């Protein structure tokens, strides 16, 4: 089967590659671009470990082919991290024990980034509903929910501290 030329902007940087059509966006990010922060937990679109932003919207990168993202802007967890230190959301995860093994965490961060962008003052229920597309097997979600609400507060305060 013929390979396809594709150009995808990832975390602000443009990448032109020739890829097999069947190469998933997740594998493209992880292996062609060496951005291994996006993880594969199920490859059938339930666990959310592979969640990235495509043109600003959360999407399961295991259910997209790299060629579908041609011309798109993709943000991965690496793109959420400042050069030095941690973002407000990431720091909130540290302060509230929002991760244990860390495997689901990049997907959680992406989903919460979208949530907090669209809703600066979510209720706990809204946070939980937003997270149903991301499974965690370690934390029982409490720390993640606390971190999300804490980060929302800090962002509203503009404190970022």
């Amino acid at each position, binding site marked *: 089967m013929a390979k396809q030329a594709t150009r995808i902007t990832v975390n602000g940087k443009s990448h032109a590659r020739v890829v097999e*059509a069947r190469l998933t966006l997740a594998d493209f990010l992880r292996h062609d671009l060496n951005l291994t922060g996006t993880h594969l937990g199920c490859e*059938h679109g339930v666990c959310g470990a592979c969640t990235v932003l495509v043109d600003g919207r959360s999407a399961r990168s*295991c259910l997209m082919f790299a060629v579908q993202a041609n011309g798109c802007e993709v943000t991965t967890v690496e793109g959420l991290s400042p050069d030095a230190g941690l973002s407000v959301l990431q720091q909130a995860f540290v302060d509230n024990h929002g991760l244990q093994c860390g495997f689901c965490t990049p997907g959680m961060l992406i989903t919460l980034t979208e949530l907090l962008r669209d809703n600066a003052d979510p209720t706990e229920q809204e946070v939980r509903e937003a997270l149903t*597309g991301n499974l965690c097997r370690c934390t029982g979600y409490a720390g993640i929910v606390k971190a999300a609400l804490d980060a929302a507060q800090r962002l509203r305060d503009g404190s970022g501290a």
Partner: protein
Amino acid sequence: MKPAPFDYHAPRQLKEAAELLATLPNAKILAGGQSLVPMMNFRYVMVDHLVDLGHVDDLRGIAVIDGHLRIGAMMRQRDLETSPELARHCPLVAEALRHVGHRQTRNRGTIGGSLAHADPAAELPAVCLAFDATLHLASIRGLRAVPFREFTLGFMATALAPDEMIAAIELPIWRPGHGFGFHEFARRQGDFALGGAAALLDLGAGGVVRRAALALFGTAEQPVRVDAAEAALTGKTVDSRAIHAAAAAAWLIEPISDIHAGAEYRRHLAQVLSARALVDAARRAGVDI
């Protein structure tokens, strides 16, 4: 779980997409991919060609035309969910969309994809059935209009020809002030429903039912209109007793049975959720129940 090899095509025009679908062997439409790609990853589905409709602008858009809400098949579920036109004219669909999958799947999933996939537990086919929607199907032979009752043919089977795709969905708009109700039961949020009911009520003076529509999903092999319930309600004053009597007609549906739920339970849910959806519809139409 990596898919088998295929060739990928990204047409920009509906005509081009129709030609590709007609001429390429073992070709399938790629809409949102939220149902198709998992099956490809499992290798349950193996295609030689994927025709991605994601760049066909003609297939997007939502507009009111002649008392109908016309929706392009490639409208992303998330865009529909947040559409002011949908909320104003067909709030039942907006309500249903909140139960469809998760934010991530709604960001990519499309209304056309959901209807073509025809999962018996899916919400969108049921609400389209409640509205007696008309689907506009496109192929190299042109466009043809199919009423929704004639579109779903059985378990995950539709009237689409192998080289045909859904281009647009038309929902006739109910009178402003109409009541709608939507209830589903799933094991977890966003899961496929083990049962669900979508109801529309148009009430006249004194709470008399001018028109009723009740569609069930997750119960049978395809979404079902409960004609007997609708007939039982039409012309009657809507109250709790009338609703529960009408909902009992859901018991007559022949349910499916699988590892998630057996037939008896699905039948039971159908009746319970029908009543709840009709009660909500009546309340929204202004009747105090």
